[in-house]
């Protein structure tokens, strides 16, 4: 199977083809209601994650709120 390369939080990772963004995030055991997701620099709503099929050279950022001043 051909693997595709995407960037997740700045690190390059290899994935099986036709994985959705939601599936990728679920493999990371994330509570998806508690994170903010950017896909190729566009903000993605929670209900849009399942419709995005990842492709070569996509860039994904997953953020959460932390303590700050």
């Amino acid at each position, binding site marked *: 199977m051909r693997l595709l390369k995407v960037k*997740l*939080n*700045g690190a390059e990772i290899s994935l099986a083809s036709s994985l959705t963004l939601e599936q990728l995030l679920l493999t*990371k055991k*994330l*509570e998806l209601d*508690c*994170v*903010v997701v*950017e896909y190729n*620099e566009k*903000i993605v*709503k929670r209900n849009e994650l399942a419709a995005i099929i990842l492709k070569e050279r996509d860039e994904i*950022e*997953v*953020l*959460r*709120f*932390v*303590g*700050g*001043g």
Partner: protein
Amino acid sequence: MDSQEDKFILGGRELKSRLFIGSGKYSDDRLIPSIAEHSGAEVITVALRRIDFESKTDNVLIHIPETMQLLPNTSGARTAEEAIRLARLSKAAGCGNWIKVEIISDAKYLLPDGYETVKATEILAKEGFVVLPYISPDLMVARSLVDAGASAVMPLGAPIGTNRGLKTKELIRILIEEISLPIIVDAGIGAPSHAVEAMEMGAAACLLNTAIASSPQPLVMAEAFGQAVAAGRKAFLAGLGVDQTIAQASSPLTGFLHE
């Protein structure tokens, strides 16, 4: 003005407390609700960061009382563009429309970039954000922020996390005098006396994090800061006595035994 009538309205919200607190540096995030309660603060800052997939960390929002006003910051931003991106992400995450614009490219003193801050403020204010920009106390930058649509101006007292107090006091005084927006002193406040000093000058509020979070007794310190900010505000409203070099007797100058 009577302190009973002293309303502080920011971003359309009336705030009873003029102390804003941070949520960083606590030994345990579970302390945050008690810190909020002891301080009386109604506004709390949070930051947005990439998830570290290797370590399980809480989402700090679960520890913040729902009644509090969240003030996400743009810490980590080095340019206006990065700050705008973080502000939009915060809003998309359901954190509301308040944003502390913090743009820093200086790693040693963490001094903010006024030029980039004005640029970001202008764009975010147009998008409907309640923008609270963190700046060095520079009158020209502050005036530009008024024109850009900021809701307040947040000058630093001393570099972030230093606890050194109001090293920029004279410049903050000028901002309070010249700028029509609320002046919220942010950064450098390390002791309740510093907060009193800022409030006595006429600052609208104080924002601090390290001074409470790094105290051996953070709950007691939170309470002390809540009281300090309230006392300083009351003193400002009451009007301070005149500062003079020649003594003025408090007791009558007649009827002495030796007369």
